[in-house]
């Protein structure tokens, strides 16, 4: 399936966007990730699941450049990615959200979403500083895209509200908006539904599906709630104790004995 595949609901999935090759990550003597490989294809929703402490977040941090693995390579668009700092990864078109929400609390929702456009704004320091026509056009153009995302995620009503005043569920949505505003080639979501109630989880699932459907965004997400993930994703990687124990469609993964053992526990007798 090197040229992609068609999902059960008839969506065409394209070639490989990102490939993790034999990634090993250590913190001192502790192995967080051991020799894991998998790929993410264009247009798909790819989930990484596993129990707490399985190394999922570490994996996402490797993908977004926040951690540098000791072994293995990250391939992006068919080329091995040289060692990069996180802001350079972001400039390549990989946007992310954080498990514990990292928004700019003192800034308005609109300003937060506009920071997502920073990598697309091309005018230099000088013309920005004197605020000439070119910078203004640049601002207007990017503002339109930001407003479109804000409409799409239904947060128009809180555009001017400082983020610090928002409830948790809305903050998560603003963070998604900021990541989307970058029009990323790959969107990484770190536990987008953590700490949400059932209703909020349903909303977030709908938004993730809509984003994928409307913009064709390739999405990789981490989640430890299996139920949500299975409905959402096209393919699932399962991790446990830093190792990959399963990889495939939700149905394949669900019937995988190792996965069942990891989630339900297994008696060693």
């Amino acid at each position: 399936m090197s040229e992609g595949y068609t999902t059960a609901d008839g969506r065409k999935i394209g070639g490989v966007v990102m490939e993790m090759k034999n990634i090993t990550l250590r913190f001192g003597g502790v192995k967080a990730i051991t020799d894991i490989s998998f790929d993410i294809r264009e247009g798909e929703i790819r989930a990484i699941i596993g129990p707490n402490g399985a190394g999922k977040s570490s994996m996402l941090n490797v993908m977004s450049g926040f951690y540098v693995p000791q072994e293995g390579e990250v391939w992006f668009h068919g080329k091995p990615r040289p060692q990069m700092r996180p802001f350079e990864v972001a400039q390549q078109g990989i946007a992310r959200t954080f498990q514990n929400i990292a928004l700019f609390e003192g800034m308005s929702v609109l300003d937060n979403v506009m920071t997502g456009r920073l990598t697309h704004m091309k005018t230099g320091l000088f013309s920005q500083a004197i605020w000439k026509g070119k910078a203004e056009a640049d601002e207007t153009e990017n503002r339109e895209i930001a407003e479109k995302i804000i409409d799409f995620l239904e947060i128009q009503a809180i555009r001017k509200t400082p983020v610090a005043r928002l409830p948790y569920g809305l903050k998560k949505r603003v963070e998604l908006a900021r990541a989307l505003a970058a029009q990323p080639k790959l969107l990484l979501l770190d536990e987008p539904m953590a700490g949400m109630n059932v209703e909020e989880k349903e909303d977030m699932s709908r938004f993730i599906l809509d984003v994928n459907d409307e913009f064709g965004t390739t999405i990789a997400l981490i989640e430890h709630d299996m139920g949500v993930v299975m409905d959402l994703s096209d393919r699932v990687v399962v991790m446990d104790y830093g190792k990959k124990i399963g990889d495939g469609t939700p149905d394949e993964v669900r019937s995988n004995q190792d996965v069942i053992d990891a989630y339900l526990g297994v008696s060693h007798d």
Partner: protein
Amino acid sequence: MPDQLLYAMEVTLNGLMAGVLYALVALGFVLIFKASGIFNFAQGVMALFAAMTLVGIMNGQVPFSHLINATLGTDIHHFGWHVPALLAIILTMGVMVLLAMAVQKFVMGHLVNQEPIILFMATIGLAYFLEGLSDLMWGSEIKKLDVGLPQGINDAIDSVTFDMFGYGFFIDNLDIVATIIAALLVIALMAFSQYTKQGRALRAVADDHQAALSVGVSLNFIWVLVWSLAGFVALVAGIMWGTKSGVQFSLSLIALKALPVLMLGGFTSIPGAIVGGLIIGVGEKLFEFALGPMLGGATENWFAYVLALLFLLFRPQGLFGEKIIERV
């Protein structure tokens, strides 16, 4: 109107204008503190360094001439040219940007994620280093700085107030210019941080480093930018103070006056720095005018600090600072 009241009004006006100069120095502190959480003890010395560099460039002085003459046995002091003020200011700004890059590369870049107290200690070191460097580069004698700013009594205000009250107010032209420039500077800085791409990135970094990285902002670039801005503010402050009282090493001590200003205004607020500066300026002048004679004079030396102490007791976050909330 009674003479006492008129005199008090004149003192208040002069206090406001002195306050503007305090606010200018405090502004430099706020810029760096907001963006990086560093309390830059070297801000005052940066103003001194900027002023000395400006004078040196304008007079065509050879930098490090004492050092060169001592090691090579030569006797050179001046290139023999004079650089026009505007060009010299631009060149000095260039030097301040280089300084910002050097500070980031050699000092702050190595101290990422360190405790605030460690960063603070580093800036104390930087202050001493810069003071030594200024001395070595340009010599330690008091120099006159004249970039063409008007100085002396403002005749228009003098004659208008004389016609109105029968008592002419003494307002220095330089103070008026300083006030206008400070106002422009604040408006420019606010516009920059609110409406430009780099300003937005700067606010983003000030708010959350990790999140800023995730939207593609280079922390290194932002910190160089912030130190350059602080260098620019230092240059403006250096020009004003240097013109007023000559370029000398006591200039670095004005940084200390900025501390009470910051305690009043709050460490994170640009308007706070301005209002704090004005309050200190007016407060110390009026206090000296009203109670100075009773207390043996020279109250200007300590009034600001006592006022700051009172603020620390009753409102530690300052007038405009963010409220400090510890979650348990």
